[in-house]
């Protein structure tokens, strides 16, 4: 009889521990999801600012088509990115393209003095700072979550329970400054 109670008690303890661990994983996953939505908000803001910027620059430098196309292409890639990894890549591409756009703008004093252009440039710089801040938070939540589901005993049951590993947003820390190559207007 006593053995039955011991077994039952052991089972109850196991279920309790399991429940606690499961709740922890759910919390970690939710944190990572929140982290991602923080990035998403800033990415959205960035893509919203770009058409305006392109129009403004086009007003002064209509013939710089190559740069406009590049920026638009990167923007579309960012909008269509479905995973954090792809979004990170597209975002880096966009950063590089914008770097070139701003380098081109250097050659147009009127454009550089334009109130509108300065405001957009300022907004975009701010968005980039915020994206990199949000990335630091997201990546740390992903690290905790991934560590959680990769350690025992969860690694055995994580997949059946629906816990998938999450992708980092840009694998290696903050991206380096974009290589700004000055392309003279021809």
């Amino acid at each position: 009889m006593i053995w039955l109670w011991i077994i039952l008690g052991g089972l109850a303890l196991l279920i309790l521990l399991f429940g606690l661990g499961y709740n922890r994983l759910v919390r970690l996953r939710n944190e990572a999801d929140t982290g991602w939505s923080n990035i998403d908000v800033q990415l959205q803001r960035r893509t919203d600012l770009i058409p305006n910027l392109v129009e403004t620059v086009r007003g002064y430098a209509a013939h710089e088509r190559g740069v406009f196309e590049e920026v638009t292409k990167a923007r579309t890639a960012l909008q269509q990115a479905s995973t954090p990894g792809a979004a990170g890549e597209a975002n880096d591409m966009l950063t590089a393209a914008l770097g070139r756009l701003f380098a081109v703008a250097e050659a147009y004093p009127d454009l550089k003095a334009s109130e509108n252009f300065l405001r957009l440039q300022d907004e975009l710089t701010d968005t980039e700072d915020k994206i990199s801040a949000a990335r630091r938070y997201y990546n740390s939540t992903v690290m905790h979550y991934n560590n959680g589901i990769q350690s025992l005993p969860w690694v055995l049951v994580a997949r059946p329970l629906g816990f998938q590993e999450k992708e980092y947003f840009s694998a290696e820390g903050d991206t380096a400054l974009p290589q700004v190559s000055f392309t003279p207007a021809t």
Partner: protein
Amino acid sequence: MTLQQQIRRNRLKSGIVIFGFVLLLGVVAGLIGAALDLRLGIVALVGAGLYAIFAMISSRAMVARMTHAVELDPDQLRPLRRLVENVSIAAGLPTTPEVRIVDDPSPNAFAAGLRPGTSYLGVTTGLLRVMPKRELEAVLGHEISHVRNRDTYLMTMATIFAGVIALIADIGFRMLLYGGGRSRRGGGALVAVLAVVGLLLAPYAALLLRMSLSRRREFLADAGSAELLNDAEAMALALRRLQLDTTTIAYADASVAHLWVESPTSRVETERRGVLALSSLFDTHPPLEARIAALEESGGFRLPEQLPSDEPFAAEVGLA
């Protein structure tokens, strides 16, 4: 020790300290109950609870008044607000705390508020005039860490607890001395002596607990800032700059001393030894040197002799 380990260790220790607090409150109420009257002990506990609730509700406005922190024109503070926004995004806070300015030449900053949603940061004009952007961001990271780790909540509670214990111990002591004679029960002499000693020491024990809580949290917030910004050196540089500065806050109020990034009143420059080491138990902040050393150890770097002579933030963004 890595930053993560340090954070975990500090959390555990503050848990122990809070437990000590609750225990102390129970002991004081128990002493009153044993020496005077059981009903008085219960009244003391209930009264302490009510006082604590009142103090919690009014704490936000109280801190603003005691630190002379004022809200400023939104346009004027925009660059600073942006920095705070970025740091709180990195910390994953749901809302960005508002920023208030303390018009004081001494560089310092604090965080206040019970919940992240209603928290605010106070920054002195001196801090903006002394710190370059990188180090200012580190100081903001320190304060945001206080908010994220619920330190502001904990510290407010600890302040209230310490105040409550001091108050009821004081009342109990007076009653025991002047009016308690007739209600003393059998075998009262020993209990009364114990009660007098206990009630005399209780406020100091509470103060001690409050201070040690604050000191742990400072290390934790330094580590938090280094982690948020991925830049342990910036935090260490900022602390060194605070160390070199010799001004103190004009309106330094001892009851809010623990909120600031460095102690706004006294200076704790070196470790004290022997009998003097005892006095360091009452400090609100660990020595800056010890905080810098902890950052150097976890970040694996040495601070340069010469501080970088970057332009201060106020000059960079054109603040007066």
